[in-house]
């Protein structure tokens, strides 16, 4: 199964949650962590694999829309639940400030200051974000067969 986590910030907080899901901790070893160009390019990035579940991340200001689009594409193409990408829209506490800092990172001259702030903020919140990912794994992956609806763990947005 392929899982796409969508948060307001991709290579910052959402990456950390994905690492928690994958039971990893070293966010600094990911070359694209805190990379503004990658964040702006809005490409889907593969973070890793856990028990046959490939985990991807991307950022969007309204994560629920990505879930809706993916559902529409899969329905139109006749993909079943197992074949299609499972999109988990995330609502992470404190993510709005990170998102704002990343937006300010595009400013000339002062931008780098905000970018470093955003990276430090994610690193400082790492234990919290990893825990969210681990909770998500427990509630989503382990119970995926019986899952009727997602339990708010990393606070996925309910449809």
């Amino acid at each position: 199964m392929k899982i796409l986590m969508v948060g307001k910030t991709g290579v910052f907080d959402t990456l950390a949650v994905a690492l928690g899901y994958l039971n990893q901790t070293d966010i600094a070893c990911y070359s694209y962590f805190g990379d503004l160009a990658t964040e702006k390019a809005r490409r889907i990035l593969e973070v890793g694999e856990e028990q046959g579940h490939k985990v991807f991340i991307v950022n969007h200001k309204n994560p629920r829309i990505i879930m809706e689009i993916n559902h529409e594409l899969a329905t139109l193409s006749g993909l079943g639940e197992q074949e299609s990408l499972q999109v988990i829209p995330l609502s992470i506490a404190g993510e709005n400030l990170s998102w704002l800092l990343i937006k300010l990172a595009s400013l000339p001259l002062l931008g780098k200051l905000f970018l470093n702030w955003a990276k430090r903020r994610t690193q400082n919140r790492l234990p919290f974000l990893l825990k969210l990912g681990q909770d998500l794994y427990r509630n989503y992956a382990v119970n995926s067969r019986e899952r009727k609806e997602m339990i708010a763990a990393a606070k996925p947005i309910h449809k």
Partner: protein
Amino acid sequence: MAMPYFDKTSAEDFGKLKLVGTDDYGNEIYSLGTQDNNLGNLLEDLASIQGLSDQYVFISTSPYINMILRIGGWLSRSASLPFLGRPLVIKGLRQSFPQLCSLLGSPMAGGTVS
């Protein structure tokens, strides 16, 4: 004005594919609102990961959405003032219509426009 969804969509329609019609080659044409003008890479990746790249061509209309169209659309849909917004939408659309039509050339030639 005769199009089924013309100036009638709501916030709930974002992310939903709306069938507009079929072209001369038999391709189904859908419209999609995304609340974002930089979603080309993401949409292509979504299709690619699921092995659907050969089924979809995504074309961004954002470069041709002019200021009149934006203001008119906001007045009509977000501010719920269609009597003010719709004339602006029509005016803006008339201005950008030739460029929007010219977009069709690229995907038919086999490329992907995003």
